[in-house]
């Protein structure tokens, strides 16, 4: 359901971008429209056709770029788990693009609400990990706020080491368990 709403919103944004793309190439479209009236004249038709081809291929190209950008944006929003180093709550560079996308989404959708769940790996003590998980969630909160989200859109909760993503005692599992999960409560 949330997924659906997300795509709907991305779709709307995409539509809006298409409209702006069209308006900037309005004259070219007029030329394209005149294509139908110039069917009988070979030379004209050829000229038109060339122009049309040139123009429509340009328009198609523009469309393709936009689609890619939106896909990238949607893909960034799909990333909702962000990882951390041991005993650290610093946001990694690789997390930033997706977090900026979430911040942008929250800024554009005032009614959207997220809970940031902080987690740690099982190493170290339960209570210190609870605090560390909270620290991680709060660094993400700070990053989202700095990038346009509003404070009332974000809640923070830490589960420390209590809810591992992977229940195993190895480096791989630890790396997957040291995380903040961005959970949308409403879109």
């Amino acid at each position, binding site marked *: 359901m949330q997924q659906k709403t997300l795509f709907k919103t991305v779709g709307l944004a995409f539509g809006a971008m298409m409209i702006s793309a069209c308006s900037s190439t309005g004259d070219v479209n007029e030329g394209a429209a005149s294509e139908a009236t110039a069917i009988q004249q070979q030379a004209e038709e050829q000229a038109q056709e060339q122009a049309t081809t040139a123009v429509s291929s340009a328009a198609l190209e523009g469309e393709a770029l936009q689609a890619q950008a939106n896909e990238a944006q949607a893909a960034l929003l799909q990333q909702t788990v962000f990882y951390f180093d041991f005993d650290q709550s610093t946001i990694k560079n690789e997390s930033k693009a997706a977090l900026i996308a979430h911040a942008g989404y929250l800024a554009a959708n005032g009614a959207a609400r997220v809970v940031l769940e902080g987690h740690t790996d099982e190493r*170290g*003590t*339960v209570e210190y990990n*609870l*605090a560390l998980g*909270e620290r991680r969630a709060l660094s993400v909160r700070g990053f989202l706020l700095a990038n346009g989200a509003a404070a009332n859109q974000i809640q923070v909760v830490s*589960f420390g080491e*209590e809810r591992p993503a992977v229940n195993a005692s190895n480096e791989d599992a630890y790396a997957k368990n040291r995380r903040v999960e961005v959970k949308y409560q409403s879109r």
Partner: protein
Amino acid sequence: MVKFFIVIVFVLISSVSRAELFIEITQGKQSAMPIAVVPFAWHGAAPLVEDISTIVQNNLSNSGYFRTLAPSGMISQPTRVEDVVFNDWQRLRQDFVLLGRIDQTEQGYAIEFHVLDVHQRVEILRHRVRGSEGQLRDLAHYISDFVFERLTGVPGVFSTKLVYVTTNRERTQFNLNYADADGAREQLIFTSRHPIISPAWSPDGRQIAYVSFESGRSEIFIQTLATGQREKVAAFPGSNSAPAFSPDGKKLAFVRSEMGNPEIYVLDLSSRQLERITNHFAIDTEPQWMPDGRNIIFTSNRAGGPQIYNVDIHSKQTRRLTFEGSYNARARVTPDGRKMVYVHQSSGRFHIAAQDMQSGMVQILTTDTELDESPSVAPNGSMVIYAASERNRSILAAVSVDGEVKFRLPSKYGDVREPAWSPILR
């Protein structure tokens, strides 16, 4: 059919909630004293529901202070002092012999027991204890405590209790359990689909404070064991955790984190007055009262990684206590205040370390378990119980404060975590 169904459901429930701990001794004291626990005499028509002398033998043996002799290796099995042939025990290189008789009384049972010194060839201890049928196990623990204290000079803790948390592999069920110190007679005292952490005993042994996530975030509850009654005592905005009763039981230290800055607070349990103790932008957590009731030791990462600090709750003066290694956390103090034990990381491994409060000398107590955490000190200051990881599962293990005695309390089901050893219950 309905009856059958009920039975099945009951069996399933009990298999989930019961962790069934059992003790496996892994290392005893070098100086363990040899003692022969002769099977106690019982002349009743039916065998007793509990094997008293075997429980006593296991207790003494599991303590690491004693090396016991299996009854099958005994030359004679006297049940009266006058029947003891000291030469038999001398030949078997025993220092002490414990023998006794169980008699049925109108109210239940009476047990008379004797300890004999094989070298001196004298009876050194004679005692009688009574109890009801439901107290047979308690009687065995009482005898164990009595003998242990007389022979070692240290109070026994066989009659004490443990609380601990068990979870299934999927982490969808969390149980707070209560059991004898040897893992027997486990009882479920609280269950939730959400995490339960940090159980802590009140000094009178009547209440448990713990953190429950049942509302979706961490809140502190105090539960009275006898009645099961629960009271929510700390549910401030943000996170509430790490409860610790003051030595007089009147206050509760805990951690409150508003907007990601965990600080130590003290709540007066009768007036409900709240006082902030620490004030630092770093993580401050895991408070533990010193026996003087005036100082609190806690974990802080104010110097980068987690280290143990001491704060005077009146002057708020704070000083750092640990300096070895980059990760020292969750300290617990022995009842005499002389040593603290905590989780220590060295060369990537997490172990339990003991530190002398006066000299600052550090000794790593555990070596053969991994990911050691949640140490809790026995009320006689002799043993530390802690959680460790074994083949991707969490088990309980124990080590003596001098590192000489080690045993494990593995469970048959799921993970066992967060042990807390009770005070001596009177």
